[in-house]
């Protein structure tokens, strides 16, 4: 009996769906698009939340970060001193194992026979690395793989690149044409969902043998990543409290000095533990290994997904209640013949759940199709496996059932409340309560859409502003070549001169760092200031010609010049530093002592440069020093004359290959480096735009359905009006007018919200557009929302208004 009833319901559902094809399409399509957008976002969020959780015992793995102060400036950094890891392991029994990592900051050239590639993100790691991180081995014994000096552990991808299908174990990789590393193991490729990504690892013990400055046992120098694994049931907070002064104490004992001196110059180092799984979404420190994401993205995209689903649900509710008059008779007949209200409610909710499941099937297909594009947009691959993971599938089904339930519940309660006598007598008049609810829902839909539109505009404008903001130097047409080896760096002057000779090159100069890359800070003791309290000032060393190459403007004094021998101790300071020092016009010739205040060597100021953005626009401009340097110049900047870019690159490339056949030609452009700084915002912006379009589309779909319903419901009125002389356009106007009112209200609601929330977002930028000055975006969003709504509605209105009124009037 129950079974038959169910069959009857399902049959009725499908009959209804087929009879009202237009509504079915709008309902199902809207829901399907909404669901697929939500599923994509869900996949994204699941992936974001999965970061670094795949390690065995990941809840016991922590990274050590350091909060501290140096000469009054606070910092919070992901780096520790190099002795930190072994010392922790030695001192605290609750530390099961500890590993230190050193990232090779620049790309390095790896070679096997004739295969040469630049690799970036290479780590030196203690042999304990695999005690903590259980990356999957393919060949080799991970226990011993990083023990010997000059050992290398490769990922599968890299092994394939150099050795193809040959067994790589025991093969020798030549690095920067200088060192030879032996391959001891190969790992499965590193999963995407970890912040700890590398093409290969080199053994820690190699560093000392490489005899370069990378090894630094100083407790005062923060340059190494430390990861620890705690023993089971260890309270991390307890360990944290025990290690509060660990670095400081060791620093003092190492220096053999009086702790008062450090306290006087306000040096503080407080290490703390970051659970590894929290790094990706919650950590944004100095010297992160890779640009992390942010939990706020997870929140905002969850909100967008919820918005889109809400819009789709509203469509569903609106269209279903709008259609209620047509179903009223069925309700009446079912009730007359003994249907209970609860049965009817079950029937209607069941219908909407069936619809929603149908939409889910379409949504999965849509997701399948759009996943690669989406992956590209978010800059991550979302694997098929995740999509069809049973748990995920269960959650989609649950989601669509909930959506079906939510969307169907109101219409169900409303429809089932019809009194059989009145509906059978066809006394159903326009219920103002119901159409009121519909209006409110449409207003909500459009408020959301308008909010998203304004968001899109503001984000776009801010990104554009960042892109076009005068940085104080000219980032266009500047090519950067890394000078990776000492051999190359010795030839800097020669290289500069050779490049300058090329017809398409206007200038070339090397420097220790380039804008946008992040600078080092050095302690300085400016003349007339405290001799114990250093100023920590960002600086870069540069060769002659650097200022011209970068197009940095000199506003006081002069540039470095070979005509003045004393310029080797000359420095240029920026406006901000000048202001902070308060030297005014007398600044030229003032002395600054780097490092040790007692040192004989002193810099003297020869000029002042106009402020320029040497880091991203997220940060304000800090004091800055450019000193003349002839060593350690790692980046060679080449400025092109405007003209054919491809040909310029060709010229340089030829010259390079002629001069340096051992190092493949490899370059970046300075403007790309700057773009990289805003990658996550750009991504966010793009996603925002796409999802706004989806939201607006679904809202329009609903509006279209509702408009056609309204027009249908007013057919008779339209017929009457036409009979008495109304022309097509006045009817179209009549039908559009109501909707216009709602859109106006939606704007009124959306504007303040957009103003508030986007204002918050903009505060992330030290240099930003003013939201009040973005009134055009608000107005434009309003215009677009009106245009879209009017277009959608009038498509119908015109059709209805143009129909012959006779048909409407004749039949009751």
């Amino acid at each position, binding site marked *: 009996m129950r079974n038959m009833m169910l069959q009857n319901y399902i049959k009725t559902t499908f009959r209804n769906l087929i009879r009202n094809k237009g509504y079915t399409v709008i309902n199902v399509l809207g829901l399907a698009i909404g669901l697929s957008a939500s599923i994509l976002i869900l996949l994204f969020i699941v992936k974001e939340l999965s970061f670094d959780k795949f390690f065995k015992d990941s809840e016991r793995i922590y990274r050590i970060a350091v909060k501290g102060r140096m000469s009054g400036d606070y910092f919070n950094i992901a780096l520790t001193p190099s002795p930190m890891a072994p010392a922790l392991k030695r001192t605290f029994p609750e530390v099961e194992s500890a590993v230190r990592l050193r990232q090779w900051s620049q790309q390095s050239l790896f070679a096997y026979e004739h295969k040469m590639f630049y690799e970036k993100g290479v780590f030196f790691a203690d042999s304990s690395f695999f005690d903590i991180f259980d990356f999957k081995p393919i060949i080799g014994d991970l226990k011993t793989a990083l023990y010997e000096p000059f050992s290398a552990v490769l990922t599968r991808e890299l092994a394939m690149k150099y050795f193809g299908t040959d067994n790589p174990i025991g093969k020798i990789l030549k690095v920067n044409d200088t060192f030879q590393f032996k391959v001891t193991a190969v790992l499965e490729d590193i999963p995407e969902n970890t912040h700890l990504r590398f093409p290969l690892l080199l053994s820690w013990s190699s560093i000392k043998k490489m005899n370069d400055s990378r090894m630094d046992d100083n407790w005062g120098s923060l340059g190494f990543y430390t990861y620890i694994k705690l023993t089971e049931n260890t309270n991390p907070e307890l360990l944290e409290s025990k290690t509060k002064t660990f670095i400081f104490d060791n620093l003092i004992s190492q220096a053999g000095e009086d702790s008062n001196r450090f306290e006087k110059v306000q040096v503080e180092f407080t290490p703390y533990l970051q659970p590894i799984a929290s790094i990706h979404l919650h950590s944004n420190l100095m010297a992160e290994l890779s640009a992390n994401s942010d939990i706020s993205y997870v929140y905002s995209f969850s909100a967008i997904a919820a918005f889109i689903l809400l819009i789709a649900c509203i469509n569903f509710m609106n269209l279903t209640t709008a259609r209620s008059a047509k179903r009223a008779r069925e309700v009446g007949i079912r009730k007359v013949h003994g249907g209970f209200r609860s049965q009817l409610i079950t029937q209607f909710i069941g219908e909407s759940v069936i619809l929603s499941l149908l939409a889910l099937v379409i949504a999965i297909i849509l997701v399948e199709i759009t996943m690669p594009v989406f992956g590209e947009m978010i800059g991550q691959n979302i694997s098929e496996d995740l999509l069809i993971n049973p748990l995920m599938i269960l959650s989609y089904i649950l989601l669509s059932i909930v959506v079906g339930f939510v969307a169907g519940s109101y219409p169900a309660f409303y429809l089932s409340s019809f009194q059989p006598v009145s509906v059978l007598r066809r006394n159903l008049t326009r219920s103002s309560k119901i159409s009121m609810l519909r209006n409110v829902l449409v207003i909500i839909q459009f408020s959301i859409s308008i909010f998203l539109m304004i968001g899109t505009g503001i984000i776009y404008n801010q990104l554009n502003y960042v892109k076009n903001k005068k940085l104080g130097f000219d980032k266009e047409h500047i090519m950067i070549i890394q000078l990776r080896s000492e051999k190359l760096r010795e030839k800097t002057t020669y290289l500069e001169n050779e490049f300058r000779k090329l017809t398409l090159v206007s200038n070339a100069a090397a420097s220790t760092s380039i804008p946008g890359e992040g600078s080092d800070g050095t302690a300085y003791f400016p003349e007339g200031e405290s001799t114990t309290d250093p100023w920590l000032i960002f600086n870069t060393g540069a060769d002659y010609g650097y200022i011209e190459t970068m197009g940095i403007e000199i506003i006081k004094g002069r540039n470095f010049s070979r005509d003045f021998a004393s310029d080797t101790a000359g420095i240029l300071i920026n406006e901000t530093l000048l202001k902070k020092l308060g030297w005014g016009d007398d600044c030229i010739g003032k002395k600054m002592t780097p490092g040790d205040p007692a040192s004989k060597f002193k810099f003297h100021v020869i000029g002042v440069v106009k402020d320029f953005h040497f880091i991203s626009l997220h940060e304000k401009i800090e004091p800055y020093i450019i000193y003349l340097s002839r060593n350690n110049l790692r980046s060679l900047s080449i400025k092109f004359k405007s003209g054919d870019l491809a040909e310029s690159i060709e010229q340089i490339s030829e010259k390079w290959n002629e001069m340096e056949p051992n190092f493949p030609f490899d370059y970046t452009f300075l403007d790309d480096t700057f773009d990289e700084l805003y990658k996550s915002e750009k991504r966010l912006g793009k996603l925002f735009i796409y999802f706004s379009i989806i939201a607006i589309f679904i809202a329009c779909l609903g509006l279209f359905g509702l408009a056609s319903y309204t027009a249908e419901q007013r057919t008779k009125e339209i*017929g*009457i009006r036409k*009979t008495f*002389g109304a*022309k097509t356009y006045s009817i179209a106007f009549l039908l559009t007018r109501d909707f216009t009112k709602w859109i106006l209200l939606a704007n009124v609601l959306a504007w303040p919200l957009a103003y508030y929330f986007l204002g918050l977002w903009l505060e992330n930028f030290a240099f930003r557009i003013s939201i009040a000055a973005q009134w055009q975006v608000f107005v434009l969003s309003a215009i677009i929302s009106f245009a879209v709504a009017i277009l959608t509605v009038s498509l119908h209105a015109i059709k209805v208004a143009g129909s012959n009124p006779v048909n409407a009037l004749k039949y009751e």
Partner: protein
Amino acid sequence: MSIIKLNNIHKSYIMGSNKLHVLKGIDLELEKGEMVSIMGSSGSGKSTLLNIIGLLDNHDQGEYWLNGIEMKGLSETKAAHLRNQYIGFVFQSFNLISFKNAMENVAMPLYYQKVSRRKRNLKAMEYLEKMGLKEWAEHLPNELSGGQKQRIAIARALIGEPKVILADEPTGALDSQTSLEVMDILKEINDLGITILIVTHENDIAHRTNRIIKLKDGIIESNVKNGKSHAYSENSMAF
């Protein structure tokens, strides 16, 4: 001068692959100030004829002269304009707009003549008063009786000061007492010189008009003046 003159009017509808020939050559002339009824069984073509006269539909063949102007190749807009200027409509089912009150319903045609709201409402009240419905001006249609509704519809038909009123079964939804009242009102209007054409299938309604035209299968079967039957036209009889 005749206010309405039809010459050999034909009208067909395409129904799928079939062609339905509804009017097969109608010749008809209405003098100014006449009150005429059209009778006929359902399917005889009387509503189609009324729609063509009311400019709600186009004829395929023949000539239609309204107030001395030939109605030919009218655009939507032009037709709407002419309807508004010359013709008032009264329907069986009243066709009042349910969410507008009596006064607003009556005033509606003036809106499309671009009369200001104040003037519209003033004039609507005047016509409601003529119909004896002044106190009902603020009421919605569903608060009124059938007779009241039809009187409002008549007021609405009159407010644009039309030359012709087309009434399609104006008493079809009313009881006999109310029907007589409505007919009396139409008679009074006719006495003011407005031409009235009524479609009906009730004999006693038809007999209250000056002339009865009977349609059958798309042609005029008879054209009876005040009860006296006479052959209407040679060729239509020949069919």
